[in-house]
């Protein structure tokens, strides 16, 4: 401590002459300091001159969120009262649209998941013979009914696993299997129609004209009613 104060004094005085110091055998620390002092000492400061002008360039000096000082200046939003935070439980419930499209992912009773009794109450799949009589519009809308039902079953499965509700996986799987049979039937019928159309194209390219044949046959053969 004493040694450091002597050192500081010598520094602040601008460095004494070697001759003014005590001889090194009396005070070797003044001549050969073992460690530099951690306190920075200088006999003049450049920051004092700038600060002395009374101009602070930092606009947010002294503004602290921790100490709740508030802004230095009046802000544009200051005229409005601050909103109070609300606990999420205290929020009033949104009134959702009762006809929202996402209800299509739920059973008709609008429960979170379907019961096994509802899932197992299904009929048979559409047979191919029934599907053959349907138009493309009918088949297409039936396909999308199947797609929506598949999505509903997948949603119910997720929810059943999440809630660990119990039985119902087998019932949902059976329902899904029947839907898949119907979808395969629709694809089969469309494939048949495609092949029929291809064959008809081939025949037409080979020169087959059904209308002419029919008219020729009709003119050659006698009508069956007279025979």
């Amino acid at each position, binding site marked *: 401590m004493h040694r450091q104060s002597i050192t500081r004094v010598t520094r602040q005085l601008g460095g004494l002459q070697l001759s003014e110091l005590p001889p090194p055998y009396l005070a070797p620390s003044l001549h050969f300091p073992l460690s530099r002092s951690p306190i920075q000492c200088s006999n003049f400061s450049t920051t004092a001159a700038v600060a002395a002008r009374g101009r602070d360039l930092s606009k947010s000096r002294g503004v602290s969120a921790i100490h709740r000082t508030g802004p230095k200046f009046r802000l544009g939003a200051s005229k409005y009262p601050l909103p109070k935070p609300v606990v999420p439980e205290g929020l009033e419930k949104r009134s*959702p649209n009762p006809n929202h499209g996402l209800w299509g*992912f739920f059973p008709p009773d609008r429960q979170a998941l379907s019961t*096994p009794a509802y899932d197992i109450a299904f009929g048979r799949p559409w047979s191919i013979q029934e599907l053959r009589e349907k138009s493309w519009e009918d088949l297409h809308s039936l*396909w999308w009914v199947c797609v*929506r039902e598949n999505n509903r079953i997948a949603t119910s499965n997720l929810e059943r696993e999440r809630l660990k*509700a*119990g039985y119902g996986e087998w019932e949902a799987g059976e329902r899904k299997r029947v839907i898949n049979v119907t979808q395969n039937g629709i694809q089969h019928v469309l494939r048949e129609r495609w092949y029929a159309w291809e064959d008809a194209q081939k025949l037409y390219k080979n020169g087959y004209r059904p209308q002419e044949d029919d008219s020729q046959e009709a003119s050659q053969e006698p009508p069956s009613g007279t025979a």
Partner: protein
Amino acid sequence: MVRRFSKFPKKPADWVAPSAPLAERKQVFLPRFTIALMRTPFLPPRYASFYVPLNFNKLDIRDYLQRAYGVGVLSVRSYVEQQKVTRLRPAGKFGYGKLRRPMAKKKMTVEMKEPFVWPEAPKDMSAWEQEQFHNTSKYQSDMQRSQRPDAGMEPNKDARKDYEADAKKLLEGSKAWRPTWQALGLNYDRTTIGKRS
């Protein structure tokens, strides 16, 4: 060779603008995939999350929800959820196999035009026979554990419980102590042996 930079990348010959009429665009008439709605209580009501096939993109789900469900979508976020490495065999089959990673799942969160709130989960699970289901699964897992080769090394917990209950009864004095041979009705009085000697 001098590289030629072009500011606008060349589009393929069969490229159709997204603003083209529907008949000119590539349409999917018979989709075979399934999407599932997830329960997301942590999301605001105008958001909904779906599990979608991996090859689904944001435009796909926007169009799908609009056409199949009539749900207007404002924005979509998507996330591919990598699955954990497992040794279980796929499709719930028995036994272990090599280390493998199940196929990733894709989740998409859409912001809808109208809010939708999930229905409450049912309180009464009797329609799903929850209790019976869990009792059965516990019984099955216990049976499987007892069939394992190292099952003999495991303590018999039922027997331990019975012994403990019996010991408590004996200490309380509600049950009188009888040696095993008495309980079994055996007779160790070797009268015949004593007569011979």
